[in-house]
């Protein structure tokens, strides 16, 4: 077990390093001249004085060979220093850390809603013996993955803020302000959870052990929850692990729609002002979240399903 964990941690660090490298290639290397973009963003107007450009270029180390730049940046990034945000001059790390709690609240609430609503939908749809109800419920997830998130958010604001005045339309205040954004963010995620869980529940219900349990006289609901759901929840767990990164990224759209402060708003602003260090920090942070949740899911797996032996390092599927 310990060797497995150490190995997975090493893999995670490798992925993070590679993600940093990809973001370096995309952001610092791909465009012709990041410095003039930064100068245009950081200064008031477009007047770019060549002497100042040269100074900036020296400050950021762009006058050095690419490999030297990369090594220097990487060395700093390892210590958690992603440089200063161009637009504010504050360190990237603390800018992100300040914005994070709001976004974690939002994504946490959305994840909870997605799992409860999506999972509930899948359980009820596979349990009910009413054909129309099953078809109605199973037609919702494909709908959920097809609607634009920002549109759902705006419709919710329209209905529940402007018409009914139940919830505030924007801002970060309290639990009431969290309801609509979290619901919006939960729609695509919940739909995907529901799709995967419903599918694996149907597969599980076809298995012999379900028939055995029923033959032994266990009632249907108990078989559904204790036997089928427990076995069917593993693929859904994998999907949840993959979707957490998507949720964090989705906060860019949802926080813009609801004018909430948080990581997403910071990201959107950073892209608008071409704040390269900040965008880079966000990309690496996204990869960190992805890697961390998948590591967590993999470690939780053996607890849920004792048949999974940790020692086998290559499992089927896309862990």
């Amino acid at each position, binding site marked *: 077990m310990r060797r497995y964990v150490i190995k997975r941690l090493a893999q995670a660090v490798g*992925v993070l390093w*590679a*993600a940093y490298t*990809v*973001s370096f290639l*995309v*952001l610092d290397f*791909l*465009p012709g001249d990041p410095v003039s973009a930064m100068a245009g963003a950081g200064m008031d107007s477009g007047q770019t004085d060549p002497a100042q450009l040269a100074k900036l270029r020296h400050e950021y180390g762009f006058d050095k060979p690419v490999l030297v730049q990369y090594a220097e940046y990487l060395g700093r990034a390892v210590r958690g220093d992603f440089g200063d945000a161009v637009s504010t001059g504050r360190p990237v790390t603390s800018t992100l850390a300040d914005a994070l709690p709001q976004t974690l609240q939002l994504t946490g609430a959305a994840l909870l809603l997605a799992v409860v609503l999506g999972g509930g939908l899948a359980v009820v749809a596979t349990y009910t013996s009413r054909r129309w109800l099953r078809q109605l419920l199973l037609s919702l997830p*494909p*709908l959920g*993955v*097809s*609607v*634009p*998130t*920002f*549109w759902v958010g*705006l*419709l919710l*604001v*329209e209905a529940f803020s*402007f018409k009914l005045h139940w919830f505030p339309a924007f801002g970060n205040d309290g639990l009431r302000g969290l309801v609509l954004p979290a619901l919006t963010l939960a729609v695509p995620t919940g739909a*995907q959870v529901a*799709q*995967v869980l419903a*599918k694996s529940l149907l597969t599980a219900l076809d298995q012999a052990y379900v028939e055995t349990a029923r033959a032994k006289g266990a009632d249907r609901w108990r078989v559904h929850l204790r036997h089928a759901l427990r076995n069917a929840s593993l*693929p859904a767990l994998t*999907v949840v692990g*993959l979707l957490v*990164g*998507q949720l*964090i*990224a*989705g906060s*860019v*759209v949802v926080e*813009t*729609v609801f004018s909430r402060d948080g990581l997403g708003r910071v*990201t*959107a602003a*950073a*892209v*608008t002002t*071409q*704040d*390269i260090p900040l*965008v*880079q920090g*966000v*990309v690496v942070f*996204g*990869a960190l*979240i*992805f*890697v961390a949740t998948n590591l967590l899911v993999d470690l939780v797996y053996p607890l849920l399903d004792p048949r999974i032996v940790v020692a086998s390092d290559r499992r089927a599927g*896309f862990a």
Partner: protein
Amino acid sequence: MSQSLVDDQAEAALGLGRPVGDGSPAEPGRPAGIRRVLRFLIRRPGLLLSAVVLVLVVLAAFWPDLFTSQDPLKGVPSQNFRGPSGSHWFGTDELGRDVFSRVVHGAQLSLKATLIAVLVAFVVGGLLGVVAGFVGRWVDDVLMRFVDVLLSIPALFLSLALVTALGYGTVKVAVAVGIASVASFARVARAEVLRVRQAVFVEASRSCGARWYSVLGRHVLPNAAGPVIVLATLDFGSSILAVSALSFLGYGAPPPAPEWGTLISDGRNYLANAWWLTALPGLAIAATVLAANRIARALDGEWARQR
């Protein structure tokens, strides 16, 4: 999203890998094939409707004048904020422009962006996957580790980083969205190439002395293409969403252009008094994505399973 595809892959591959043995007997009776398609569609009214919606969107993208004669850019200021009616199906916006006409003309930009995105993902991802699967060994390892890294960065963040680097505009947004879904294409293409490469007929052609490029072009690629094409149809829907999200955030075409996402972000300012400015263009996006996803689902297994 690729989850369902991975699950269905075996089935889809079975169905789509079959035409070699299956297409030839159907060849003489071509009307029978058409009849079969029709029967398949009629039994699935939702699928038929999806096909109709998609055809309408494509028509709107290429010949917007078929649907509306009103100018999408010029409005009648005195007729602003009119609700949906017979003369303005989707109402008018703050400058008195006809929203239906803007949605119809916007189809061109949005569909173009989506097609570019899918094409970029298909070509780049397919190439990575085919090279990795066909060459194998360390090339496979290096390319697939790279793909793993791409997968670890949330798609929207990757697109945003690319937009930061490339700049704004419909085409740039499209490329950014396409690159963000390269990874799943590479994975599916590689898996298919690996599967086909081990087939007996590939071994046979090798042993007959065929060169590697003719094995690849004649045998491997045609038989590996099916699932990748299914993925492309699936990716079409999610690319529409991604492109419209980026243009909603303001990184798409500059203001007067009626891109679908831009239309909704414009309408957002008048949410309290003009619901149709956001609700109806969004409905157009949702209908298109829903239709594309339904068709992808039909291609992904249903069609092969029903015979």
